[in-house]
């Protein structure tokens, strides 16, 4: 009011304050405190939401570039009687409603059925869309489609949480998003960069398990044990080795659970060893090898459940051999560090067999992971 009604004179103001500047200093301290008391949350919301907004824009960009990339790949490499863009575009918005878990009894078979139905549906639709589609191309398309769909889902969900928090001016609502967004972005960047390797059919970090078992399968008679899954028999130091992996070089993880079930109906192994890629903890070295107990297999959990159940029923011990890597390394082109660990992993596997079995016993070795670019 003083400023509005009369010309502001700094000297007069200082005179009013007096020689003692304590009043001015007090004002300088109190005003920000009052601002922060009443508007602190809003300021925090503003700062946090600006950072999140930048990440959401990045997610949107990743979604649109991968979508364009995917459609361009389809147009340039596959033959179709009609323009597939529209139909493929509709696949990006497909969603899955997970089974109700109020009564968890029997939920695994429900999830398994749901996931398999979705895969079968997409596979059939893509197969009908193009002519002369090889199984390798089909599996690559499924993987590419999965990448675009996942990125779109990330974008939609983060945007939803962000907009809801902003709309309701609800700061606590943005906190979980602020905590989760670095992890979401890490996975999103990995997915975006995975497109290139998958398009060209190159092995990814996750392919290390199938690569070890694939090498052992060379010069053996391979048989299809179940959908997109092969197995063979060989011997090692007077022991029988059953080898199981996804059918390469398709971009697939196969169905190791079903494969194990079928193999056990012919002969019960004395030991199961699973080789897989595992997410490294912060501070751990990439491509380092770790050994342990239990079923080393990721995914939604249905395959692991099946393997664990069969092993428990038949009292078969399961050992795990994993190659540590980041999420980025696991789904993008295999790094030289991981590839060069293959010989060491194979040596570790053979030593594991020597240490845990005696001659005459049977060992099932499962190479878990996406076998893209890795034959057998």
């Amino acid at each position, binding site marked *: 009011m003083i400023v509005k009604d009369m010309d502001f004179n700094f000297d007069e103001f200082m005179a009013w304050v007096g020689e003692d500047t304590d009043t001015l200093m007090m004002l300088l301290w109190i005003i920000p405190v009052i601002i922060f008391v009443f508007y602190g949350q809003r300021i925090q919301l503003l700062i946090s939401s600006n950072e999140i907004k930048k990440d959401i824009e990045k997610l949107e960009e990743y979604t649109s570039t991968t979508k364009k990339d995917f459609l361009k790949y389809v147009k340039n490499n596959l033959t179709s009687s009609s323009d597939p863009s529209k139909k493929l575009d509709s696949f990006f918005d497909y969603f899955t409603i997970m089974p109700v878990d109020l009564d968890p009894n029997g939920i695994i078979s429900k999830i398994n059925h749901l996931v398999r139905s979705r895969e079968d549906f997409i596979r059939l639709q893509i197969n009908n869309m193009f002519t002369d589609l090889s199984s390798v191309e089909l599996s690559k398309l499924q993987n590419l489609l999965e990448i675009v769909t996942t990125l779109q889902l990330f974008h939609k969900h983060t945007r939803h949480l962000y907009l809801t928090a902003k709309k309701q001016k609800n700061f606590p609502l943005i906190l979980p998003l602020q905590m989760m967004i670095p992890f979401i972005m890490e996975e999103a*960047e990995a997915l975006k960069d995975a497109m290139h390797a998958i398009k*060209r059919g190159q092995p990814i970090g996750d392919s290390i398990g199938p690569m070890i078992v694939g090498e052992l399968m060379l010069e053996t008679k391979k048989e299809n044990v179940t959908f997109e899954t092969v197995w063979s028999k060989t011997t090692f130091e007077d022991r029988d080795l059953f080898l199981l992996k996804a059918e*390469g070089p398709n971009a697939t993880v196969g169905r190791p659970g079903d494969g194990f079930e079928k193999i056990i109906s012919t002969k019960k192994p004395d030991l199961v060893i699973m080789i897989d890629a595992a997410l490294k903890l912060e501070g751990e070295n990439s491509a380092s090898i770790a050994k342990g107990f239990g079923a080393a297999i990721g995914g939604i959990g249905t395959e692991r459940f099946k393997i664990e159940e069969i092993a428990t029923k038949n009292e078969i011990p399961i050992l795990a051999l994993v190659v540590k890597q980041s999420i980025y390394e696991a789904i993008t082109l295999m790094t*030289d560090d991981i590839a*060069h660990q293959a010989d060491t992993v194979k040596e570790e596997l053979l030593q594991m067999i020597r240490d845990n079995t005696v001659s005459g016993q049977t060992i099932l070795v499962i190479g878990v992971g996406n076998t893209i670019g*890795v*034959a057998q």
Partner: protein
Amino acid sequence: MKKSERKLSTCYTFLKCQSCKISKKRKFEDGDVVFSKTQNCSDCDGKMLITKIFGETMD
């Protein structure tokens, strides 16, 4: 892996001769698959087997 560590990588194919065991590294070509036999060995004319395909980071 930090963002700064994610530099462009070139894909290489590592081959090993089945007869003379000589190893060779060349740039990845479309159609290369690990454990597939490709060209003949330039030294002994034996079959070369692809043993690894990997990306090397460009500095």
